[in-house]
């Protein structure tokens, strides 16, 4: 058996990954198991798959899960109605059922000649039973199409990345088959690297002030929705475009609407700024 080459995934220019995450990705790829990623919204769960595909030079297939998505949709769809219509008007090829079988995202990933990166995004959005319906397919990396008596099996096992926002609990049987990694909220140092990866030209003084203010706001215990990394990045570009002087950032928190999305949270921030000014 050929031993799979250990990957060279180290994060990418745009994506800064912690050593633990890189380790988890390596293990998942080497063992051919799906990697389940959880973490606060905005910590870059979806970005991870893109970054892996980019740095390994593989095709990325994204299967975005919605509340109505069925497991079958990812495998294949048999377009019965089209076939019926075609048979009415005697257009050619009705006998060939294969013509009416359309592969889903998972099927696509299996059929690709080269190894692909398959992102199953926000798996928790789907029905409670959804993950259970994919157990066999993800385990054996194959499925059977009864209509054509055909088995689709993966030519090379795709690298499967699954993200979850923990909106629903996932079934144990499914979890048992995954490698799990929880992306923690980055600390100040890592956050600085992440910001620099996105905005290499940002002024050092501004960056320090922004990060200071950002973590102060996150530490306000009563916030209903804490601002995330992606909101911080938006905020920085707003501050840069607005030409705000770095010294005003901590004391005034300009453009706070980019960070906080709830009126209650804004009120909390205002009273916090007020008490700072007085103290």
């Amino acid at each position, binding site marked *: 058996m050929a031993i799979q080459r250990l990957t060279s995934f180290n994060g990418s220019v745009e994506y800064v990954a912690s050593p633990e995450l890189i380790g988890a990705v390596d293990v998942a790829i080497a063992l051919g198991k799906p990697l389940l990623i959880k973490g606060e919204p905005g910590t870059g769960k979806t970005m991870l798959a893109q970054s892996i595909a980019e740095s390994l030079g593989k095709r990325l297939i994204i299967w975005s899960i919605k509340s109505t998505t069925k497991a079958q949709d990812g495998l294949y769809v048999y377009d019965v109605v089209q076939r019926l219509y075609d048979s009415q008007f005697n257009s050619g090829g009705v006998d060939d059922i294969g013509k009416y079988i359309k592969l889903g995202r998972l099927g696509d990933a299996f059929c690709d000649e080269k190894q692909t990166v398959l992102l199953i995004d926000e798996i928790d959005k789907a029905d409670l039973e959804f993950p259970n319906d994919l157990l066999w397919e993800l385990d054996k990396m194959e499925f059977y199409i009864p209509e054509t008596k055909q088995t689709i099996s993966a030519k090379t096992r795709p690298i499967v990345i699954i993200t979850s926002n923990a909106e629903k*609990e996932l079934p144990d049987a499914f979890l048992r088959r995954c490698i799990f990694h929880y992306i923690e909220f980055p600390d100040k140092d890592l956050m600085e690297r992440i910001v620099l990866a996105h905005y290499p030209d940002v002024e050092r003084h501004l960056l320090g002030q922004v990060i200071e203010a950002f973590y102060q706001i996150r530490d306000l215990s009563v916030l209903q929705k804490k601002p995330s990394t992606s909101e911080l990045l938006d905020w920085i570009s707003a501050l840069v475009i607005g030409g705000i002087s770095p010294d005003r950032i901590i004391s005034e928190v300009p453009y706070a609407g980019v960070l906080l999305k709830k009126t209650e949270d804004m009120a909390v921030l205002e009273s916090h700024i007020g008490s700072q000014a007085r103290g």
Partner: protein
Amino acid sequence: MFINFFYRLRACGVATSLNEWLMLMDALEKGFARTSMTEFYNLCRSMLVKSERDFDKFDNAFLMCFGDMETVEGGLSEDLLRWLDKPKPKDCDTKPRDIERNAALTRERIEEMFEERLKEQKEEHNGGTYWIGTGGGSPFGNDGEGEIGIRVGGKTNLRRAFRVASEHKYRDFREDEILSIRQFQMAFRSLRQFSSRIAVPKTELDIDETIRKTCGNAGRLEVVFGKPRKNTVKLLLLMDTGGSMDYYSGLCATLFQSVIKANHFRDLKIYYFHNCIRHDLYTTPIIGPKYRVATQWVLNNLNSDFKVLIVGDALMDTDELVKDSVSAGKNQMSGLKWLRILKRKYPSLAWVNPENLPSGVIRYKNWGESYDIIRKEVDMYSLTVEGLRDAIKHLLSSDGHPMMKRAV
């Protein structure tokens, strides 16, 4: 290899299985994490633990198996950890002789001494060479100058695996609950009544009608679509909050989360009350005039086809339940009367109770009397997976016929 660790994990409540264990062995064989303890720790965690909630349990088990250097029988008191977290500036001078003496101690001796100090020490210490504290030259504590010893609490600079584990970073995620959200969610799934008489786009293929029409067309296909069947259940959730209910806040939060996440209800309304439903309800768990809604308003606006689920411990002063009161110059009906009004308006109504009092027990004064009164009045179920299932069965079966009732 490390099989003890596997059993230790399971004993600590991490539900890891043989599959995952073999997977880990596979990974170790492939050469992951052979060089560093931290990598080994990360590897084990990513393979054996499947929820951030279990990270803390994993940390404990990991420490017990591999980190005997830093576990202390009986645990460290919160006070001690707090003192150590805030080191004072090093302004005291420690005697180099004592530091030297401490440096000559053996590992075993240090552990013994540490246990002794743990028993003796009652206050914060910073500096010095004897007590556990910050700075100073004793072999215990952190930020000190002692060359060897036990590091206790504080921020770590050297990210060694044991240190990471002993920090209990994931304690917040722990959730030692008997009931998981998933179990509750599964129970709420059964709270469904399907109907196609709702205004939604026609997206579902109606096979029977398609066949009929196609035959009518002498075989030329005509596809007919119908409206998909949707859940028609409307749920009104009334939750007791504050006071004696605080004890059950975790359980109620689980119930609440699973109701919110069920999102298959046609309509869902949630209100809060304190002890018993009276003339006012509240839109948030914080009972305050700002969030007040008149109960009568709710009754007027929500039709009888709402199913009502009340969550509360039904424990209050008996007078509070049965006696009318005067407030704002008006005579206000008692909680019991309101409960009867609710029952009349909403034929399917159930009460789930986190408290489980056996009946006929001698109680302190009249404490608990309200429980019996309410139980006689409405169908009460315990807040467990079983109880919730029964309550939902009751809600579905006691459908009532609001139309007929109204006519009476």
